[in-house]
């Protein structure tokens, strides 16, 4: 699978995020604390279902929000540069493109090794998302999550094997949870 990379290698590390603050029911800090203003919010609301598919989509958004189109475009440029917008473009339905084997691979990596392991796996060109998440012992020892996508089962298995080879002794066990059905995929809604 040939892929392009946009953000590979960029690591986000919410520094103040103590493990205990992630505990269920605990206060969750806004990770980056970069709060958007009310006009930005209105732009989010006007575009969360997608851009209008018309010749001047940003002008259509401007009309909805009630500000000049130049301001919509300036704000989008700023939000994109700040990473509040990850990117602007299309999101393909990977099932429709033939990627029928979408696996959440989860790896049992010791807490002290997760940052190194995540950096290594995040650099693999076929991994679409890679996160450190809390393990839930005793039933769930897995702390490193990496998503893979393939058109055939054998190809998916080969990708899992490449992650396993990359991690080597850093991982003491893993699972692959393939998705059997999309139950909902709407994306963010304000």
């Amino acid at each position, binding site marked *: 699978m040939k*892929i392009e*990379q946009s*953000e590979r*290698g960029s*690591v*986000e*590390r919410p520094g103040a995020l103590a493990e205990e603050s*992630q505990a*269920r*029911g*605990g*206060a*969750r800090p*806004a*990770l*980056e*604390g*970069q*709060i*958007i203003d009310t006009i*930005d919010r209105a732009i989010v609301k006007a575009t*969360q*279902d997608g*851009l209008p*598919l018309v*010749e*001047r989509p*940003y002008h259509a958004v401007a009309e909805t929000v009630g500000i000049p*189109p130049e301001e919509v*475009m300036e704000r*989008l440029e700023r939000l*994109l540069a700040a*990473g509040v917008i990850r*990117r*602007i*473009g*299309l*999101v*393909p*339905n990977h099932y*429709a*493109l033939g990627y029928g084997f979408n696996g959440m691979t989860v790896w049992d990596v010791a807490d002290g090794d997760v940052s190194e392991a*995540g950096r290594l796996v*995040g650099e693999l060109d076929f991994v*679409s998302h*890679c*996160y*450190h*998440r*809390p393990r*839930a012992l005793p039933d769930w020892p897995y702390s490193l999550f990496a998503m893979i996508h393939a058109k055939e089962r054998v190809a998916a298995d080969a990708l899992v094997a490449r992650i396993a080879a990359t991690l080597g002794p850093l991982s003491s066990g893993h699972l692959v*949870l393939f*998705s*059997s*059905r*999309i*139950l*909902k*995929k*709407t994306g963010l809604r304000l």
Partner: protein
Amino acid sequence: MDDTDRRIVNALQGGFPIAERPFAAAAEALGLEEADLLARIKAMRDDGVISRFGPLWHAEKMGGGLTLSAMSVPAERFDDVAAIVNSFPEVAHNYARDHALNMWFVVATERPERIAEVLAEIEARTGLAVHDMPKIEEFFVGLRFEA
């Protein structure tokens, strides 16, 4: 889906122009007419080849909350529980997966404290435990698919 559609999907997973006539600019780069590009994107969206077209917002950078949660749902209740979980507008994605934890969903909220409320409401309405697995560190997001 023809070769031109594939070129569009491969080229436009990011970097869509911010300009008065962005489809015209994107079409020119692809050697297409603006109207043809618009028509093809509309058709692919209507056919479900494209899930969405526009800015991809980063919930946490907007000051919001985001988490991944999982539940073990008895098979005979699976569709009913899926309907309850999906009824929350804060549930952005939900996938059935092959494991004892067989329902995995992403919750995105405008206020971080709303996450715990949504998960508690899901537990109350389903009578099932929700295992919350918020990210501690992000290593990579953003693979683009080759059509």
